[in-house]
């Protein structure tokens, strides 16, 4: 199998309102920038993967009028659902099969042009759940309630996740929310679905991200520091909330185990320098750390405190993560771009000194049903 490296990336400045950018120009700009960052031209790209949503775009097969903007003209353009991070994994397989040298992965969403909440609601089972009003947010609220109850976690601990991410996001020029908030701000923000508060939910944003992967030889010939993919996995768990133990993110548990095994990581909390996690609600960050084996069940809050005071030896979400901007479908791919930037020392003001190994992870779906993760290292 060929080694695969992340050689270029770019992301938009994520915003909450529609700009003059159409989705075409949104992706075109990040692709142009990503190609420049890798020193490549579109002619060097063998295959394009894109991630977008017909429901967000408001059209059937919405990718078909974007082929040109995506760089897919006269090459294979393949569209993947879920998140761009999953597309990156398929791109990695294409390259490691030996048939392709380079792949461009693009993910975008323009949530501002969509009726708010519509997408989340349309995710649930149309026959049994939708008539009851069960959607992503409701399942998230039930999951948080169960999680807090089971491990006797105070609402302040969850609010603390938002405070911490918003503080980090202030240093990220791409982030949409760049003003720090206090614990009091978070706890007094309105409850959108008890116990989830507004500031604890990821803000749907407009944005795009492009990442370029290349095989061993072409990557090395670029003569720069590279982020090598050493492990990756994507897992989808049960669709029925409650058929698994709802307080444990089983998809994240299995996906990280597989990725760590491929990367030869035995003790993730000691070996990883960075974790970049994308998710929708603040409590999920704690559950994801537990599922990834960075700490034991219910120890998420304590682990985050250790991250905060430096005793954990790992930095979490130096970009501010998805609580500062959530261009859904691109959120996970942005985590990969951030992780690659960190291990190659190109993360500018949010650079963590000496970062060598990072985990990019995205958890999506009803009660974090799906997880994709990629380990990159220098």
């Amino acid at each position: 199998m060929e080694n695969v490296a992340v050689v270029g990336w770019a992301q938009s400045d994520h915003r909450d309102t529609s700009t003059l950018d159409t989705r075409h120009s949104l992706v075109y700009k990040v692709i142009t920038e990503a190609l420049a960052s890798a020193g490549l031209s579109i002619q060097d790209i063998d295959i394009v993967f894109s991630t977008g949503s017909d429901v967000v775009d408001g059209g059937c097969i919405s990718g078909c009028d974007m082929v040109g903007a995506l760089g897919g003209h006269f090459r294979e353009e393949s569209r993947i659902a879920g998140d761009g991070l999953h597309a990156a994994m398929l791109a990695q397989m294409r390259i490691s099969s030996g048939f392709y040298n380079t792949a461009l992965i693009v993910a975008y969403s323009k949530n501002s042009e969509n009726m708010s909440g519509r997408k989340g609601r349309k995710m649930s089972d149309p026959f049994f759940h939708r008539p009851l009003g069960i959607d992503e947010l409701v399942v998230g609220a039930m999951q948080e309630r169960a999680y807090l109850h089971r491990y006797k976690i105070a609402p302040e601990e969850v609010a603390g996740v938002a405070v911490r991410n918003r503080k980090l996001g202030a240093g990220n020029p791409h982030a949409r929310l760049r003003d720090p908030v206090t614990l009091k701000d978070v706890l007094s923000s309105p409850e959108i679905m008890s116990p989830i508060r507004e500031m604890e939910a990821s803000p749907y944003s407009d944005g795009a991200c492009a990442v370029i992967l290349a095989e061993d030889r072409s990557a090395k010939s670029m003569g720069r520091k590279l982020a090598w993919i050493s492990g990756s996995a994507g897992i989808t768990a049960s669709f029925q909330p409650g058929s698994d133990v709802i307080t444990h993110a089983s998809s994240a548990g299995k996906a990280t185990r597989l990725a760590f095994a491929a990367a030869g990581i035995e003790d993730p909390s000691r070996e990883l320098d960075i974790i970049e996690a994308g998710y929708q609600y603040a409590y999920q960050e704690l559950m994801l750390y537990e599922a990834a084996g960075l700490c034991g069940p219910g120890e998420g809050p304590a682990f985050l405190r250790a991250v905060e005071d430096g005793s954990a030896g790992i930095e979490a979400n130096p970009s501010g993560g998805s609580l500062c901007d959530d261009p859904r479908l691109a959120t996970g791919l942005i985590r990969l771009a951030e992780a690659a930037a960190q291990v190659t020392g190109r993360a500018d003001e949010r650079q963590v000194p000496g970062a060598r190994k990072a985990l990019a992870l995205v958890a999506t779906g009803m009660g974090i049903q799906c997880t994709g993760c990629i380990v990159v290292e220098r």
Partner: protein
Amino acid sequence: MARRVGVIGTGQSKYEDHRNDVNTPELVREAALAAMSDAGITPGDVDAFVIAGASGFPEEISFSENWIGPAIGASGKPLVRVHAGTNVGANATISAFFQVASGAFDVVLAASYNQRTIEDFRFNSMDCCDPLWDLGFDYPQSTLAGLQARFYLSRHEGKITEEHGAMVAVKNRKNAVLNPCAHVRSEITVEDVMNSSEVASPIKVLDCSRVCDGAAAIVVADEMKARKLNPAPAWIAGVGACSESRSVPYVDMAYPESCVRAAQQAYQMAWVYEPASDLDTVEVHDTFSFQELIWCEALGICEPGTAGKFLELGGSMLDGELPVNPSGGVISTNPEGASSMVRQIEAAMQVMGKAGDHQVPGVRRALAHAWGGAIQYSVVTVFSSGL
């Protein structure tokens, strides 16, 4: 070095105008279980799943893969969904091919389906059009295909006639009578087609496929597993896919470049030099009758403008020198997003010698073709009985 990959099982659901007896996961399950039983495996033996869904828009559900996955045994396993036009089922198989070829997984199941929740299909395909520029022109898929057929007829005036389109429909409907899986299984005559009402000139009702609900699934495995599970797998010898910008005036619809390039890629990989003689049978994506002729030319099976003659001389008949759509094609069975995978299934079955009454004798190499979008996506897969 990539690993070799073979098709070890295929499955199709029952096709009906509307499958109101099942929901989407149940429909996909029908095909997936058939494919797994054909391969002699259970869901536990499958390492990863690929679901093909053309669009979440008509389905009124986003991320439908999460809904469908558990019904086919994908819970707790890697699962991805590919999107595209009607070529999406073929894309899913290609995705499964590379997942195995790369060494990431040994056994992968790809499934595709079509179940229309919105009754008015015309409205539905209209949604594909650009909301700002194209919607006002009011063209559904049949209008686009009408334009395509008109370009083709005028380019090859005197060589290709409207009757040639009718003859394709007649041939494929006749083949479908022999295919127990086909949706429409009744014969028609050239007069029937010519006298049927016009949809988008020169296309008439009987030049069109009839959209149905249904699902298809295909199981692929690496060489070692494939040999263990199936005495005669259909090896995937070549794959090619190419996209083109969606710009109706600039796409050469009568000889689509994306199709030419996808074929070149697949032929190169499968060592096909002379498609007309190196291939033993071909399944092309004939959503509309004229398209069979156009694809045969773009695939290099006939010279441009000669597909009509080839048809007239019986070359593409079931007993001809290169049978085209022995299954009856999309004209007879069109579960939209799954139709492209059905082409691969039929080509693979021909190679495995399992096509039953519509088996072409002695097939060693078979091709499956798919198109999608505004005639802008092309996928070509070549199956072979030997490595």
